Every structure is written in structure tokens, then in C-alpha cells.
């Protein structure tokens, strides 16, 4: 850790690859709107793990759509409003949309007035042009912001036959009240790039000097576009992994990033976690017993932080929180190669904790026993390596 952070690329059309299917899905709906053909679903929500290219996709869609006539495009990045009061944030958004649609200033002084005037103005605009809303960072946003955004903007516009809403987000799906945003929405999960050829195409456009290592990079990244880019910036695999991890954490503010990384590393060997497991893992990670005395509230703060930055989510199948899968794999791989003693300590701590649980909780003994076996296998697999 401690290397200089690689600057992440900003979108430009000549660097964008793949995603033809997703682009065509949106374009097909847009063309229908322009022609005035009825559309039953007018909301598309793109989801996917960290680094799968959601924001780039929205940026690309914005560029493609703005080249068309008969359509107005409004792009909105909710990450800008992460620290704003939700009411002020929505007021700002309404003003911006008013300006973008040339509805002029003076929408009103209350959100209700602004919303009403804006929607009325947009309804007049829709007689000539269709409207596309591109909204990024949705699931990562505060629910109070989303509730206000639905009430004053997205909800009223979702009903309009010539409005298409395209959203992107990672983490906690928001329970929209408006059926057009939930029941009648199309959900598209962005997958990593499927093969080495696509990774190579990306490197050709973004990191040409690493093109020869496309297969090695794809094997490490699983085809994740962000990971591909970051791995390509370094020749040394260990340094590359460290850079990739730091890059994956780019969305976390500087002053919190170190702590969040520690939490993620400490939990990276687990298949799932919760507040009960956090103290034991932090103890093993830091080699410090003080974490064993942690309260539930302290452990909960760790969990909340990871969920807040969308690096962890509740998984019903696992019956616990799971880390963003690529981030988890990269972190564990990094620990295995760069800090093997620490990695082994974490595996041993997990095995010990689950053994105790298998003894203490007869009703769930089998579940915890399976976890013990998993961690024992992990330790053996490393021990067996030459």
C-alpha cells in the first residue's frame, strides 16, 4: 500500500468498447419515443459490481442520444449530492432540468411549486420532443434523496408516455412507489467483459503498452473493465493488485479510504459476514485483542460503512453480508501474495470462530461446520503449494 494512485480515465467515445446490446436496447426505445409509438416499459435500470462500466455506459448513451434530433437528454449524477440536504439537492436538480429544457428561471420557491411548474413545462415540450433522463449513482444514494426525487421529478415524469428514464446503480435497490419505476422497469445486470479478446480491445484503446499481457490481465480481473485498466498500469503483479484495490476504492473519500480498506481486507477471506464476525476478524487482521471487546454498535459501524460505500450488501442465500465479489477476490489475492501470514491468520481466525459456533449452536451446526471446512481447505490449498 502507499503507492501513488493511478488516475482513472474519464469517458470518451474512442475509449468506449463493447456494450452494443445495452446501447441498442436504449436506442430502440428512444426511436420508438421519437416516432410516438407506445412503449409499455419506459424505465431501464443498469446494475452491476464496482468497475463494470455503468457510468461509462450512461456517458456513452448521453453522447449517442444528444446526436439525435427530436429528443432532449438530461444527465444527472447523484454522487454530486452525497453530502447535500435532500431538499436542497432536489431543488438544485429541478433548476438544472429547468435550465436544460429552456423552461427559464423562476420555477417557484417550494419543491411542490417547482415540480408542478417544471412538469407542466415538460409536458408542453413533450408535444415536440421526447425526453430521456440518465440518472447515475442511484442505488448508492441516500434514500431520503431518492424519496424526494421520486416525489418531485422521477415519479411525475415516469407517467409521461414520451419520457424514458435510464438509471444506473450498485448496492441497495430502492423501493420506488411509482409502478413505472419498479414494476414496469427493465433491470439489466452489466457483466464483465466476456473474453480475452474484449479485454484486449479495451487495452488497445486505453493502455496499449499492456496489450501483450491481455490474457494474464483478464485472468486476474475476470474481465472487469476497471480492473483491466488498473492492472495494465503496472508490470509487477503484486503492485498491480495493490493499485487495482486502491482504484476500486476510488469512490471512498480520501480520509476514510485507509480504514475502509482495512475492514475489507480483514473480511475478505469470509464468504459472508455480520456484526458477530467482525471483531474476531479485525483482531486477527491487526493482531490486537482490543477488538474482541468491541460492542455490537462498534461492529455495526463497520458494516454500515461498507454498505454505505456499496462494497457490501445483504445476501439472502448466504444469510449474511457479502463483499463486492471482484473487490473481495482481488483483496484476498493481494493478501495471499503480499501478506501471506496475515492471510493465514485470518483464515485460522475464521475457522476457529465457526468451530465454536458449530459447538454452541446446535440448530445451525451444519451451516457453521461447512464454513469451517471451507477455511480449512483454503489453508491446505496454500500449504500444498510448492
Amino acid at each position, binding site marked *: 500500500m502507499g503507492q501513488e494512485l493511478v488516475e482513472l480515465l474519464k469517458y470518451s467515445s474512442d475509449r468506449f468498447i463493447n456494450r452494443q446490446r445495452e446501447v441498442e436496447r436504449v436506442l430502440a426505445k428512444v426511436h420508438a419515443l421519437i416516432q410516438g409509438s407506445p412503449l409499455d416499459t419506459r424505465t431501464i435500470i443498469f446494475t452491476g459490481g464496482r468497475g463494470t462500466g455503468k457510468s461509462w455506459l450512461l456517458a456513452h448513451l448521453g453522447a449517442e442520444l444528444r446526436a439525435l434530433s427530436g429528443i432532449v437528454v438530461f444527465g444527472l449524477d447523484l454522487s454530486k449530492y452525497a453530502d447535500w440536504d435532500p431538499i436542497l439537492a432536489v431543488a438544485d436538480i429541478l433548476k438544472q432540468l429547468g435550465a436544460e429544457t429552456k423552461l427559464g428561471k423562476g420555477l417557484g420557491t*417550494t*419543491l*411542490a411549486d417547482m*415540480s*408542478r411548474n417544471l*412538469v*407542466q413545462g415538460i*409536458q408542453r415540450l413533450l408535444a415536440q420532443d421526447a425526453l430521456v433522463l440518465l440518472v447515475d449513482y442511484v*442505488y448508492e444514494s441516500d*434514500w431520503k434523496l431518492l424519496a424526494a426525487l*421520486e*416525489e*418531485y421529478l422521477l*415519479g*411525475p415524469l415516469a*407517467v*409521461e408516455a414520451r419520457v424514458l428514464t435510464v438509471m444506473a446503480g450498485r*448496492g*441497495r*435497490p*430502492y*423501493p420506488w*412507489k*411509482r*409502478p413505472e419505476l419498479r*414494476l414496469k422497469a427493465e433491470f439489466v445486470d452489466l457483466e464483465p467483459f466476456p473474453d480475452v479478446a474484449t479485454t484486449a480491445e479495451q487495452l488497445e484503446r486505453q493502455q496499449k503498452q499492456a496489450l501483450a499481457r491481455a490474457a494474464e490481465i483478464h485472468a486476474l480481473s475476470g474481465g472487469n473493465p476497471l480492473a483491466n485498466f488498473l492492472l495494465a498500469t503496472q508490470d509487477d503483479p503484486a503492485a498491480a493488485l495493490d493499485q487495482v484495490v486502491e482504484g476500486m476504492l476510488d469512490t471512498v473519500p480520501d480520509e476514510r479510504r485507509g480504514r475502509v480498506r482495512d475492514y475489507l481486507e480483514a473480511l475478505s477471506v469470509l464468504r459472508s459476514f*455480520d456484526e*458477530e464476525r467482525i471483531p474476531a476478524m479485525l483482531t486477527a487482521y491487526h493482531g490486537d485483542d482490543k477488538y474482541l471487546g468491541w460492542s*455490537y*454498535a462498534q461492529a*455495526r459501524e463497520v*458494516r*454500515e460503512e461498507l*454498505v454505505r460505500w456499496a462494497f457490501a450488501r*445483504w445476501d*439472502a442465500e448466504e*444469510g*449474511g*453480508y457479502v463483499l463486492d465479489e471482484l473487490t473481495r477476490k482481488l483483496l484476498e489475492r493481494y493478501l495471499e501474495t503480499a501478506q501471506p501470514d496475515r492471510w493465514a491468520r485470518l483464515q485460522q481466525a475464521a475457522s476457529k470462530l465457526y468451530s465454536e*459456533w458449530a459447538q*454452541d*449452536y*446446535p*440448530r*445451525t451446526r451444519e*451451516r*457453521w461446520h461447512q464454513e469451517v471446512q471451507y477455511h480449512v481447505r483454503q489453508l491446505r490449498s496454500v500449504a500444498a503449494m510448492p
Partner: protein
Amino acid sequence: MSATPPALTPEISGPPAGFEPLRAWLEWLGLRFDPFGPLDAASDPRLGEYLVGHGAFARTWGDWASWVFAPPGGGKTALRVRTSQACWVGQETNHPFPIPYIPPFLSWGHASPSLDEHLAALARAGAVALFLALAHRPHWLFRLDDEARRSVRAVLDWNLPGPLGGYLDRCRRSKNLEPLRATLDPTFVLPDPPDEATLLRWCGVLDAAPAGEPRPAPAARWNSLCGLLLDTLGFRSVYVLLDGLDAAPETIADAQAMADCLGSLMELVGDWAGQRVFVKGFLPIEAQSPLEERFAPVFANTHTATICWTPALLAEVIRRRVYVASEGAFGSLDAIASPGLRDVETILAKAVLPLPREVLVLTRRVLEEHVGRQGSQGRIQEEDVDAAIQWYSAHTPPIILESGNLEARSQA
């Protein structure tokens, strides 16, 4: 289908004992509110966020007539409320106008209403909804011309339960909408009610609107209301949300009586659809066969869904509420339970009568058991679940299931 047992109804008057410690504990766990508190769907403003049964709602939501059948306590009212809440987003009229219609058996004194009786009751229900909506959105009235305002005045004068002037006086005295809600519908709450000055202005405008003609027959009153909603105010459509069919002594256990009650109304369903007025019935399961047999042509052109509660669906009731209450942080009681528990929702779902209200009652009991035992800290323990199930079993009336068919299904 199974026989329908009486639902468990624990005595609750006011906040239950231990309310504050429970709330403190839920906060400690990371829940922003008590998701198992409101048992009455009509008074739950968050229902739309955590209602399960998207298949049935998908059948309901849209510009078409639809029917949802469910057993007593099986979610009919919850779905009706959800449909109504889904209409009220935003400040404008670019959405359906929902009219909750619960047949007023008490005021009729019988359960075989004529068409006129239905239409009079519908016009009244519609006028109440319109009056409250206009009170919350006075700009809809302000932008009407004199002729249109006269139509509004006429519809309200003809159909409201009491004199319009009386309601307006109460608003003027209190300077807010609470008297209207309290008198007409306490569950009708929209965001952004008008400020005092706007409300007083609205009262003045409505008062000053010239009175209309003498009160016409029910059919004309109903048609005027629909014309006002669709053509003058610009709502996209009207949804008549029919519920409470099993509320009368005559209908409560008599499926044929339910069908008789709706007879005159069913004949209008098709015609109304052509006028953008769509009937959406939330009806007892016992009424399904008699209605489908007797009004086959109507059902051939409408959407139907039947809600049956499986343990999986009941478990989802709990999970959705936990998810919303935690603002998406977690979606299961397992997240706040000891490692000795797994899939708590399914354990509870299998322990109750197959109705959502029952699983909510039991879940609430689990929380209360914990607070009683351990106060406002700690995670749900096995003892809490065991004690709650024991309590529930001791209070549940015996039931005999006629059929084991418990698959949730939607029908074309």
C-alpha cells in the same frame, strides 16, 4: 380453497406495553421505524414500499378492469391501498384518479343495492376523494375558469355527505386540513398540503363558485363527476377500487349474496372501460366462482389474480419490511438474529395461519419477547422465537383446512 378461520386479533388499545424499549431496540439494531407496527393497511403510508405480491399488483395496475380474490385477512385491502397510493405521486393530474368504494351496506339497510344506489354511493365516494384531493392541490381549482369551477361546486354540493359550507368553515377555523381528514377520511394524506394563506384562498374560491342546478339523479351525478375528473381536471383515467364486499352480515358468509350485490354494477364494467373508468375489485375468494360463472363475458375481458399465501410468500412479507425499515442495509431478520438462528422468516411463516396479518402479529411478538427478556440490546435469540411461537399457538383458534393447495397464482 381452505375454510377461512377468524383472524387472531390481540387486544391492542393504544401503544402496547413496552413500546418505548421496543422502539429503542429497533433503533439500536439499525431499523429506522417499526415495520411490524401498523397492522391496518389503510393507515400505513409505507405500504407501497414493502407490499409483496407483485404478480397480483401487476394484474391490477393499468388502464383495464381487474379482479383480485383473496381470503379474509389475505391482503385485499393492502393491495387496494397500494393501488391508491401508487396513483398519488407528484403535483399534477397526469395519473389515474382512485375512488375507494366500500359499499355502504349500513346506510342501505340491505345488501341488494339497485344500480341507482350503487351510483349514488359511488358519486359520494368520488366526491369525497375529489374534495380532499382539491384541498391538498388547490392549484387545480385556481387554474379553472368560472364554468369549470361551477361544475366542481355542483359535484361537491350534490354528493358530499354534508354541506360544503360546513366543511369549508371547519378548514377556515382550524387553518389546516385536519378537520377534513378527520371527518371524511383520516387515511387520505398527500405530501405538501397548502399553507394557511393558500388554504383560505381555496376556501374562498370554492365558496364563491356559483351553485349548480338542483341535484339530479344518481346516474347523472356519477357521469358529471367522471366528466369533471377526466375532461375538466385532466386525470388520465378513473379507478373504482371496490372493497369491503364481505362487510355486511348478509354477505359475510354468502358468496351468492356477494354476487347479487354487484349484479347491477357488473353490467357497466365494459362500457365504463370505454370511457376510461376502470373497476378494480378486491374481493373475497368465495365470491370468485359465483361471479365468474354469472358474469363470464365481463371476466373474459378483464384481468384476474388470486392471492394465496404460501410460507415463502409470508416470509417475504417480513423480509420486505425489514429491508425497507433498514433502508436497504439488510433484508432479513437473520441479520439481527443470533448465529443459532437461520431463515427466521420461514420458521415464523410456517408457524402461523396462512395470512399476512398473522405473520406480522407473530413477528411482533418475537420482538416483544426479546425486549421483555433482554431489554433494548442484543440480537434475536432462539428463546425469543420459541416463546413467541408458543404464545401464538396458545392463542390461535383451531382451523380445518379443506384444501392443501397453497400455490400463489395469477390467472389470465
